[in-house]
């Protein structure tokens, strides 16, 4: 369960990126955080995986205040998560395989197992035929799918995705959402930052509406 209490975030005075945001996401939820550009979606997601600290407020994941975890122990939290960054954050001097394998190499899995899991993750995003290509030779949409494969390769408990379908054509976006839904069915909590109304309408079970850093509404499908 993810609980955010009175989160305030300020990058520069006097503007607040997030103002008094409180929300609860249950384990196994499939939810969207939506709103126009600059509404604070990315900031909110970054606070949940602790790339950013809020100016005020508390973040609890399964009852643990993640803001109090010391820096040298934060890796344990992150190993339970899969993150799709808005800017992909791929390593361009490493192959697709090597990029997707990073979370598995970190935990020291044997090469055979890494190969099997990377292949499966790439097959899920329909990129297994480009396993040995380098990211700079892939299209924008393909790079995005590599980032998604890296996020799902270690079967995370929590999957965070910031605009994961932003550059994909509607058909592929739909496919990607289906993959996320599949991971969700296996027990993972999925939080997606997106402004794609069509996808949200189709897939969203729980939707938080953000505007100018404030939660202005919440919708839940029964």
């Amino acid at each position: 369960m993810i609980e955010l209490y009175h989160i305030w975030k300020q990058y520069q005075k006097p503007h607040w990126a997030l103002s008094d945001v409180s929300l609860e996401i249950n384990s196994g939820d499939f939810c969207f955080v939506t709103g126009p550009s600059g509404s604070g979606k990315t900031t909110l997601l970054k606070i949940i995986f602790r790339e950013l600290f809020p100016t005020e407020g508390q973040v609890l994941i399964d009852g643990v205040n993640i803001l109090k975890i010391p820096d040298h122990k934060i890796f344990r939290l992150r190993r339970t998560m899969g993150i799709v960054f808005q800017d992909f954050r791929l390593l361009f001097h490493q192959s697709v395989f090597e990029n997707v394998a990073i979370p598995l190499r970190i935990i020291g899995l044997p090469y055979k197992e890494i190969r099997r899991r990377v292949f499966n993750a790439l097959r899920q995003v329909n990129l297994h035929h480009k396993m040995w290509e380098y990211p700079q030779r892939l299209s924008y949409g393909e790079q995005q799918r590599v980032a998604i494969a890296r996020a799902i390769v270690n079967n995370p408990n929590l999957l965070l995705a910031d605009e994961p379908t932003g550059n994909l054509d509607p058909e592929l976006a739909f496919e990607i959402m289906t993959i996320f839904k599949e991971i969700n069915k296996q027990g993972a909590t999925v939080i997606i930052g997106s402004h794609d109304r069509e996808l949200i309408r189709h897939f969203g079970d729980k939707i938080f509406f953000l505007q100018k850093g404030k939660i202005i509404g919440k919708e839940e499908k029964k």
Partner: protein
Amino acid sequence: MSLRQLGYQAQAAGSNLWNFRGRNLVSILIIGFSFLIIGIFLSLSNNLTYLGEQLSNNLAISFFLNRNINTDELEAIKQEILNTGLKVEIKHISSEEALQRFKTNFPELQDILSSLNNNPFPPSLEVRLKEKSITLLALSSFMDRIKKVKGVEDVQFNQEWVEKMDSLSRIVRAIGLFLGSILILASFFIISNVVRLNVFARKNEIEILRLVGATNTFIRLPFLIEGFVLGFLGSLLSLGILFLLMKLFPLYVGSSLGAARQLFELRPLTTEQMGWLIAGGIITGTLGSVTAVSRFLRV
């Protein structure tokens, strides 16, 4: 960290060393030349120490005795010399022997001697030190002690030359230490900066690794391996150049220096000194990396 992860990190370090080979070569050269200077001074110091030892081995002190000295007094002096505990070889030179020696060594001055009515040379005790090394202070206290014994008139010893050798050896060691320290410090900062550039070039990678759950040790390790390798290769390079210098320098100098040539014969470093040079290179390289990476781990 498992062996598998270690292998992965070593592989990452290897590819990074290759990818940034130009920059890494510069660091190896800098470490190499810094440690070469230290090696040269060490070698010079070895040489001077060797010369000093040779000198002490052949060190002879002459105690000139009273002409009317009797056997008891002579024995008392010998006993006093032995009582000092120093390893010595004592030889008694009578007035006649001294005269004979002078005649043999300086035949052209025989005429002067014949014009004298009596033998001008006093009897003496020639004391040859067998100690491997002896300090000047110990030597002068030894001489003072013997000089006070009844029957000893004077002492002759070429102290000035020994003192010069001693201070030269100390100066060489001090310069070596001073220059060496500066150069080691400089190479430490250079390595640190080279690694920092490498780290900066891989800032994205470090950030990604952090965000997908890598530990600091996991991130730090390839850089430490790189620092270790750079330091090791740098110090090996310095030993290689030093070896070449030792082979080529005597050939270049040739025999033109005559007796002084011995000073320029670079004696090889001892195995222990070579070990210390390599260890120094490795420590400098690794510490340089530790400092550089630590600054980037606060992602």
